[in-house]
Structure formats: structure tokens, C-alpha cells
């Protein structure tokens, strides 16, 4: 009996894995189809071609990273993933710069960084729509579950149920209506947006709605900045072609921001009133 159950669950698990994998691949295929139809070449192929074009020469220590990237690509690692990985610290640096020098505030540093990657996947408009709807569902479900006086976690699980159903409808709808094309997104942007909405709800409970709004808005602004920077073709190409330069740049910038003791841009606005 036990063995049967084990096999059954194993089969079940495989089914779940299948379910996750298939849409992602389909997604790529669809995208390629579409891009080919419009006569454009995919970014992925272009990046790979770029790699081919660049002369690396012999290994001399300084070009270790470039060598490794080529090796990885040759072994089948997606260039897209490599670019995203390399750009993650860049976005994080940007977020910390915006925080310490400009004074924009979000939920820590990782949430804005990750949401930026999400935006890259869904597009900024699509991502905002997704977030807005998830937040709306979260708030409505909180309002509903508050009346039931449940424990916190069961209430959150119910919230997740509503979000799942809501997001499903949203994706289905958008494919019909042709909005922002979020019918093809993978599960990760949805998860990321759920986490952000959860942060909102938690801050609203612990501090105030005003603070929650401020932080969420700040997170979105930071992520949009990050997404825009990541989306620049030149940045992507350079990160792949000159990863060492990227590293040095990130380190230098972080050293500078990390030692910055001066005024933040938003503080100028705040302290202006205190000048006699």
C-alpha cells in the first residue's frame, strides 16, 4: 500500500513539475513566433551573436569572467539568465544609491530589486496591473476574513486562494482583451507581487496605512527605475561583454554610497522649512 501511495504521489509530483515547465517553454515559443512574424530577431540570439563577435584572446587573469561566460553559454546556460544575474547587483546598487542619496524609500533593498526583475518579465504596465489587482484582492480578502475572526495564517491562506483565482481570471481576461499581455507570464512575478502586497498589508497593520502606501509606492518607483536600467540594450550588452568593468563599477559605487554622510535630496525639501 505504502509503495503504491509513494508511486502515486511521485507521479503526481511529476505532473506538477510538468505543469510548471510547459507554460514557460510555450511562452518562449510564442514569443519567438511573434518576434519572427514582426521580422525582428530575438534578444537572446543577438546577445549570443555579440559574444561570438567579441575577441577574448588567451586567458590572462583579467578576462576570467568572459572566458567563464563563454564556457557556460557553450554548455547551454541561457545568456538571458547570465545577463539578469550580472545585472542584479547593478540594480541593487541603483536602489541603494536612490535610497541614500535621493532619499527614496521602499521595503528594504531586495524587494525593489526583485520587483524590478519582475517588471522586466511582465513589462512595467503589466506588472503594475498585476500588482494593483493582487493588492486589491488582498485588501478585500482581509476585509472579509476580519469578520470571520480566524487565526492569522488560515486567513492568509484564504487570501492566497482569492489571489490565485483572481490572478487566473486576470490572465485569462487579458488574453481576451489584449491588455499588457500578461496572459503568458510565469509564476514568479505573481509570487513576487503577492509578497509585495503582503508587505503592504503587514505594514498597514503594524504601522499605518499612510506608511504602507508610502513604502509600497517607493518600492514601485525604485523597481521601475531598476527595470528601466535593466531594460537598456546597451547595459545588457556591456554587462555581458565587460563583466569585470561592471564588478569594479558596482564596488566603487557602493563604497561611495556606503560612506556618504551628506544630505539626501528629500531631506533638502524637509529642512528647507527649518532655515530662518
Amino acid at each position, binding site marked *: 500500500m505504502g509503495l503504491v501511495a509513494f508511486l502515486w504521489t511521485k507521479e503526481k509530483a511529476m505532473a506538477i513539475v510538468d505543469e510548471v515547465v510547459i507554460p514557460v517553454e510555450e511562452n518562449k515559443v510564442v514569443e519567438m513566433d511573434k518576434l519572427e512574424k514582426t521580422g525582428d530577431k530575438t534578444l537572446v540570439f543577438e546577445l549570443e551573436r555579440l559574444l561570438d563577435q567579441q575577441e577574448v584572446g588567451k586567458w590572462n587573469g583579467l578576462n576570467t569572467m568572459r572566458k567563464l561566460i563563454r564556457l557556460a553559454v557553450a554548455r547551454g546556460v541561457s545568456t538571458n539568465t547570465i545577463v539578469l544575474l550580472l545585472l542584479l547587483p547593478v540594480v541593487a546598487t541603483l536602489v541603494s544609491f536612490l535610497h*541614500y542619496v535621493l532619499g527614496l524609500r521602499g521595503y528594504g533593498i531586495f524587494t525593489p530589486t526583485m520587483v524590478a526583475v519582475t517588471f522586466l518579465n511582465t513589462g512595467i504596465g503589466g506588472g503594475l496591473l498585476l500588482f494593483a489587482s493582487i493588492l486589491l484582492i488582498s485588501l478585500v480578502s482581509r476585509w472579509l476574513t476580519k469578520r470571520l475572526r480566524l487565526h492569522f495564517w488560515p486567513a492568509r491562506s484564504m487570501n492566497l486562494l482569492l489571489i490565485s483565482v483572481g490572478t487566473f481570471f486576470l490572465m485569462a481576461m487579458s488574453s481576451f482583451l489584449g491588455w499588457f499581455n500578461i496572459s503568458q507570464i510565469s509564476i514568479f512575478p505573481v509570487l513576487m507581487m503577492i509578497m509585495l502586497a503582503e508587505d503592504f498589508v503587514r505594514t498597514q497593520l503594524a504601522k*499605518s496605512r499612510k506608511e504602507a502606501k508610502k513604502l509600497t509606492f517607493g518600492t514601485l518607483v525604485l523597481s521601475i527605475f531598476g527595470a528601466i536600467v535593466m531594460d537598456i540594450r546597451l547595459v545588457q550588452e556591456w554587462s555581458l561583454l565587460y563583466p569585470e568593468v561592471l564588478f569594479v563599477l558596482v564596488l566603487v559605487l557602493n563604497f561611495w554610497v556606503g*560612506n*556618504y*554622510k*551628506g*544630505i*539626501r535630496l528629500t*531631506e*533638502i525639501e*524637509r*529642512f528647507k*522649512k*527649518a*532655515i*530662518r
Partner: protein
Amino acid sequence: MINLKQYRRFLTKNERNKVYLKKNSARGRAIADKKWKTKKILAEAGVGVPSLIRRFKNYKQVTDFKWEELEGNFVVKPASGYGGEGIVVVRKRAKWAGEWRKMDGEIVNVADLRLHCREILEGRYSLHGMRDTVLVEERIKIHPKFLCLTKTGTPDVRVIVYNNVPVMAMLRVPTAESGGKSNLQQGAVGLGIDLATGITTFGVKGKKEMIRKIYDYRKKKKIKVNGIRVPEWEEILKTAIECQMAISSLGFMGIDILLDKDKGPMVLEVNARPGLSIQLCNRAGLGLRLRRVEGIEVRNVRHGVKLAKYLFAESFFEKVEAKDKKRNRVLEALERVKIKTGKGRKNRVELRAKVDTGAFRSSIDEDLARQLGLLGEKNVLYYRHYRSSLGKHNDRPVIALTFWLKGRLIKTAVNVANRSKLRTKFLLGRKDLKGFLVKAIKD
């Protein structure tokens, strides 16, 4: 183009976090986070703190405690709460045993308080939902000077002390918006205080909005934010310095001081990460002030107070000092007093009074009192048998009287005597000369 140079005097968030919070060791921060620990250390050092009635570590102690024996005038609060959350202030007993009235008149009973304690113990009000302990302590009676400023909560004074010198201070007034809490973040009002005189200067509501007026509940209209004199200012500064000397592991700290009606300044809590909005309501830069007191060796508390006063006095400081001097407290043998005979400025009678330190109570001439209409049924407090120095014994009425001496309002009880044959119709006894000096020889 913004002139960035003039922003250099402000303490920015980056600089606070990078430079000044480094002066606070982990040990110091641990003390500041736990109100109970702070209280213990400060009490040992002789700094005024609200006295502790009980501390509960678990729910059994809460149920075992005899709540009914509490008279009222107590506060139940979490030991590591933040932002003033979870504090229940009880004023007095209600009609039945085991029931009390809160500040807003609402009734709480033992069951309510037990439930509240349980919530505190379970960590509802602590920072990360961690288990907490409950403190039951004496309530601080709001100083009458501040009664008119707020209806909910108690105004307190936040003093920032660095290197044993008070560098900046503000009066924090809770508002309806802040829900009785005096944190600016939650919408309370902050009034900057001149360190030399203890007089308020500018005002800010919340973290950004500058205000010029604040509502006075007694006058039922808005009054200016500047010019409010914080009582016992010298004592407050002293308390703040003593506080830092007691917790020397906090080099840069914000101290929240409440003024008790009877007991004077009391330290409510210390803050290892004081906010920066204090610069707005003082319209002054904290950064510049901190740099100014850097490296000064403060010998004792009085030295610290003097330094703060001289270094950070506002420009009106001299004017106030001159005014204080003019209103001197030295009395000649004969002084002019103004007696209140009714409501308003018109109903005041000025007359000459003789200062007599040999008499305990002041006395007024019978005919004069009758003329002024002071012998009315309501005004006579009681009759008293007096023994005069000439050996005559008689019953004299004692009346309530309000008068001004050297600009100071004195409300007192005086006895009515026959002074028709004497030159001064009013005699000032030593009971009403509190705070004055009497000159023995005319120069």
C-alpha cells in the same frame, strides 16, 4: 540653485546613522530598549523615574496580583513597547470595587486589565511580536501648565544630550491625530525650546508640517506656538544630563522627560535613535551643535547645564533675562499690591501694604474690606479666634483674597482686622511672601 552650504548645519539621516549612532554601544541600546532596565539604572543613580508598582513576567503573576488594592493613578504598559503603543492610563477608582476610570472617563475593570496584560505578555505590542513583560507603575500627574495644551495624553520634553551637554530640546504635545501619543511620527506636535530660557520657539506637526498656532483648551482659541515657558527648566536640563551620566554607554541619546505636578521632572524613557524632526521645530541644525560640543570635558551636571545655556541660547535670551531681573523678588517694608474685587482688569484696587514677617497670615482692614465688597457671605471662609500682640482677643473673619504683588498672582486666605487707626490698611504676612526676599534696611 539651492545653496547647499546652509544645509550643512543639519544632522542628516546618513550622518546620524554613520557617525552618531556609533557612539551608542550594543549594551546601551539594550538598556534603552527595555524600559524596566532603564528605570532600574536611573533610579539607582538618583534620577527621578515613575515608581514601579509591579512587574509581571508571566500570566500567573497577573492573576495572583491583588488588583483591587490599587487606588488608581497607575499605568499598565509593555516593558519593550515602541511608539507608545499598549499603554493604559488609569486615573481613579470608579464606583464599584475592581473598576477604575481611565483618563478619558471610560471604565476599565480587573478583567480588562488582565486581558491587556496577557496581550502584552504574548507580545502584541513588542517590536517583533516577541514575548514581553508588563510594568505597572505610578501615573505621572500632568503639570497644570500643560493642561490647556492637550486633552489626550501628557506632553513631555524631549532633550537630546551628547557628550553630557544638552544640545536641543522640544516640547511634544499629543494630538487627537496621534491618539494621545507624543511621537511626531504619529502626528503629535513638537515645539522647539530655547535651551537658555525654556521658552518655546517654533512648532511642527508630524514630521513635515510647520505650524504657527496651537489650540489652547482653556482659552478655547488658538495661541501662538512661541512664548510658552516650560516650568522647572533648569531641573529638566539637570535631569537630562544626570540621565546620560548614568547610562554612559549611550553617547548620543534622546531623553523623554515628563513633568510631574508634585515631584518635578521624571524620565519616562531614553531613546538610542532620536528622530531628526526636532531640528524643524527649533529651526536650528543639530549637526552644527553636535560638532560644537564635541570633545568638551564636562566636569559635572551644573557645568553641562551652563554650557548648554551659553552655547545654544536664542537671541531673545538677553531680553528675557533682563525682564526676569526687573521683576525682582526683593521687597521693601512698604509695597504696592493690587487686590482683585471682581472679574476683569477694571475690578482691581491698588493700595499700599506693609510687609510684616512677624505675622503669619496677611490681614486687611475691616472697613476697607467692606468697601471693596469682600465681606460677602460667599467670601468668608470661617471665623477664627485671634490673639493679637496687644493682648486683645477677638473673633475675626478669614476671607479668600486674590492679589498681585510685584506682578505675581497670589491666591490666599487673609483675616479681617480693625486697622482703621493704622496707616497701611493691608498687612502682608509671611505666609504670602513665599519666594520673596525682604529687605531689612532701606538703602
